């Protein structure tokens, strides 16, 4: 058998369920792995090894009392440090929040615990999930950014320091770090995963979601955290979650793979500024989808697409300014330069411009719903290239941003490596609440390529 820390989440869960591996063995192996590689990767804001050991002992007590362990029983996970964790400091990568200890868990954290997951600790985030970088490094090239804002989650997964993680995306903060770190990230539909207990960056754009090493792993986490939550009104009208793992494991679906899936290739925007290696990997990925039986076809994006991306930025800056107004007034010097610029410009956007931006959002949602009658998913590169060198920037979210603006789901899956060994990602976007279609497409693609099995040499 592989070292326990090498196992995918799915394989580790299966090994635990069958009794071949104990949660304590997995935890010990994972903690030993962290001890070896964390000094170089710096993915964790804080580790809670003692709490994790206590949590590992708890399910055994539950089993003795006849309670069935959850599907994530004994699985070590990392939680981005903007998710509230009861009794554990949640500093949001910020001086402002240093020392803040929430008295409750974010809904998605509570649901992970209920499913049996073991919270290993808090992963680094950029400051308030914005653009001022965190200390985390890219495990594939330590002098490159892991992306942001879910920097630590992406880095910890790639470095095999946890088996699953929570991230959040306001522009590109799940899919970008996942792509840069060579792992899988799912940004669910807005309203699918509760925002309760997640520090806001921009209320109408924030999406919590799972990250992991494989598509099936992400589906397992998604099943655990998705669903209505009375504490987040946006989740209440969402349709019931219908079992992502079951859908992937269904023999009929599995055998069919992505056959017959209509894959749209946008006519523009998603290749603007794409670097040559990224372009070659994207072309190859589209060819592979064709080989899998997908019907790959060109689609024309709505005319107002580019204006809508400007609308996204206006909404982002105005809402971030509103979120931070009170603390910014008191402690402006404790904010990083990039977030200060967002807040300051946000304060000065005229209110009618914000409302118009939200009207454009309505129009684009309608136009993209219409476009997604002709195709089942869109396939795009996940980023304009691999993780940039240096750690002052977290790279560009431009290819991920449209799905955050729309609230439609998106997923990234590894689709190759540059000559210098940096991962590249393929992104699928789809219809609201049809995450399973995205997972199906990504799983079929993943199974036909070797990329997800590669690990960085650390």
């Amino acid at each position, binding site marked *: 058998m592989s070292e326990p820390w090498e196992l995918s989440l799915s394989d580790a869960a299966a090994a635990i369920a069958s009794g071949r591996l104990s949660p304590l063995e997995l935890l010990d192996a994972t903690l030993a792995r962290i001890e070896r590689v964390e000094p170089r990767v710096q993915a964790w804001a804080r580790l809670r090894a003692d709490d994790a050991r206590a949590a590992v002992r708890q399910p055994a007590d539950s089993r003795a009392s006849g309670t069935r362990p959850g599907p994530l029983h004994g699985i070590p996970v990392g939680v981005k440090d903007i998710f509230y964790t009861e009794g554990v400091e949640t500093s949001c990568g910020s001086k402002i929040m240093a020392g803040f200890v929430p008295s409750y868990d974010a809904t998605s954290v509570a649901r992970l615990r209920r499913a049996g997951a073991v919270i290993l600790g808090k992963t680094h985030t950029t400051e308030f999930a914005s653009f001022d970088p965190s200390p985390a490094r890219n495990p594939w090239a330590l002098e490159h950014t892991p992306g942001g804002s879910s920097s630590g989650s992406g880095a910890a997964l790639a470095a095999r320091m946890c088996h699953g993680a929570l991230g959040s995306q306001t522009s590109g903060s799940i899919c970008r770090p996942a792509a840069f770190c060579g792992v899988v990230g799912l940004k669910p539909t807005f*309203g699918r995963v509760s925002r309760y207990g997640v520090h806001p960056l921009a209320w109408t754009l924030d999406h919590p979601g799972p990250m992991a090493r494989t598509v099936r792993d992400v589906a397992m986490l998604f099943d655990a955290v998705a669903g209505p939550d009375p504490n987040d009104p946006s989740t209440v009208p969402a349709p019931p979650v219908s079992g992502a793992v079951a859908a992937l494991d269904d023999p009929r679906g599995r055998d069919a793979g992505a056959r017959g899936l209509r894959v749209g290739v946008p006519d523009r925007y998603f290749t603007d500024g794409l670097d040559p290696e990224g372009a070659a990997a994207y072309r190859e990925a589209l060819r592979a989808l064709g080989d899998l039986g997908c019907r790959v076809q060109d689609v024309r994006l709505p005319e107002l697409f580019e204006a809508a991306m400007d*609308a996204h930025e206006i909404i982002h800056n105005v809402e971030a300014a509103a979120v931070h*107004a009170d603390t910014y007034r008191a402690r402006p010097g404790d904010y990083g330069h990039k977030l200060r610029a967002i807040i300051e410009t946000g304060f*000065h*956007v005229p209110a009618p411009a914000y409302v*118009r931006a939200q009207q*454009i959002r309505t129009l684009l949602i309608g136009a993209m719903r219409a476009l997604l009658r002709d195709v089942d998913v869109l396939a795009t590169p996940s980023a304009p290239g691999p993780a940039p060198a240096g750690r002052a920037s977290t790279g560009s979210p431009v290819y991920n941003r449209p799905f955050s603006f729309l609230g*439609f789901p998106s997923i990234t899956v590894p689709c190759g490596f540059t000559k210098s060994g940096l991962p590249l990602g393929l992104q699928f976007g789809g219809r609201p609440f049809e995450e399973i279609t995205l997972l199906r497409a990504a799983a079929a693609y993943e199974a036909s390529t070797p990329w997800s099995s590669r690990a960085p040499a650390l």
Partner: protein
Amino acid sequence: MGTEGSLRPPGQHPCVSPHSSDLKGDHKEHGHKSGGVHGLLRLPDHGERFEEEWAVTQRRIEHVAATPVPRETEPAGAPRLVRGDV
């Protein structure tokens, strides 16, 4: 929307504007309004102007303002998406 010339970089009160030519003719009225954002919200004047970022934001505002939007279009706000109407 007539934003041209009436928007100023964050924190830039007209009295300290390095671009005084921008202010000709509407110094008093617009200076009072836009310079007042910091005062209205009781924000600190820390001296930073973010001129580069503001120039980008201003272009975005102008782009959004120039995009035709039917008057009856309801602003999206937080999307409340329902399945089945695609």
